[in-house]
């Protein structure tokens, strides 16, 4: 079963540290990571920096960046572009709903991921989220834990995989 989770950290480099622990957890067989992205928002920056797993040799065929591009575009970049982009955000929310990310969840992400914080975005399979949370505990809290229908799961994995 695939899940989409977002973990928030109250330091700009928290998500990157957690990414390392995530990959350890994966090699321990605790979780299978389909795709991931790190958002880091340093204090004083106008917008966050974003990094996808597409640089990762092991997952070159997975995250082609386009889903993260749409997601982070709607959250962080399109609001800065202008009126036409503003009109596009609502339509983009509708598109993202088809892979199980609701407009309310998008609003939560937009309000919670702010200057001075960071977030780890994960699409996982077979994860024991409680045990995974224990690995990341003390540093994070779960911003979003999607409850995907079978159809949404299939769509999400479909756009991430070849």
């Amino acid at each position: 079963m695939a899940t989409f989770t977002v973990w928030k950290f109250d330091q700009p480099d928290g998500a990157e540290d957690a990414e390392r622990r995530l990959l350890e957890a994966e090699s321990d067989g605790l979780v299978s990571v389909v795709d991931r992205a790190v958002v880091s928002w340093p204090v004083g920056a106008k917008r966050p920096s974003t990094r996808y797993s597409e640089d990762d040799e092991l997952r070159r065929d997975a995250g082609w960046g386009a889903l993260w591009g749409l997601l982070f575009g709607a959250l962080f970049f399109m609001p800065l572009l202008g009126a036409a982009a503003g009109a596009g955000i609502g339509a983009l929310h509708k598109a993202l709903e088809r892979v199980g990310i609701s407009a309310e969840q998008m609003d939560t992400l937009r309000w919670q991921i702010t200057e001075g914080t960071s977030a780890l975005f994960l699409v996982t399979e077979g994860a024991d989220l409680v045990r995974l949370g224990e690995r990341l505990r003390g540093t994070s809290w779960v911003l979003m834990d999607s409850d995907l229908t079978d159809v949404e799961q299939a769509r999400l994995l479909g756009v991430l995989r070849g």
Partner: protein
Amino acid sequence: MATLTVWRFPDANGADRAEATLERLQKERLIKVHDAAIVSWPDGAKKPKTRQLNDLTGVAALSGSFWGLLFGLIFLVPLIGMAVGAGMGALAGSMSDVGIDDDFINGVRDQVTPGTSALFVLSSEAVLDKIHNVFVTGENAELIQTNLDDEQEAKLRDVFAV
């Protein structure tokens, strides 16, 4: 003034071959490349492979988020299975604040299909007829392009700078 140029090749490897050519053209000062990316769509694949050409530009002008958003709008939105008409117009026009309008998005979507590839180049100072000669005569490429006025280019850099 900057130009976003898309050279579309009639096979899945054409854009990869063109990368070396573009590098040579830049050395000969026939073009100044600010950022570039390749889309390659093998026959039979459900989605294209994409990559940003960091080596070519030294330091890329734009973050991967720009290409992720652009490729998401062009290639991923139809994959998500959004009904045509249900906000597709607003989505296709959502980068028109930076000179990338719905004609461009739809034109690229129509032409870059399975069995083709494309080289996306954000550039200035291009000696277009010489480059045209190399790609169109040599590789049967087709050209899709849009010009960004100074204000649009400034906004693009402001929002998506690395």
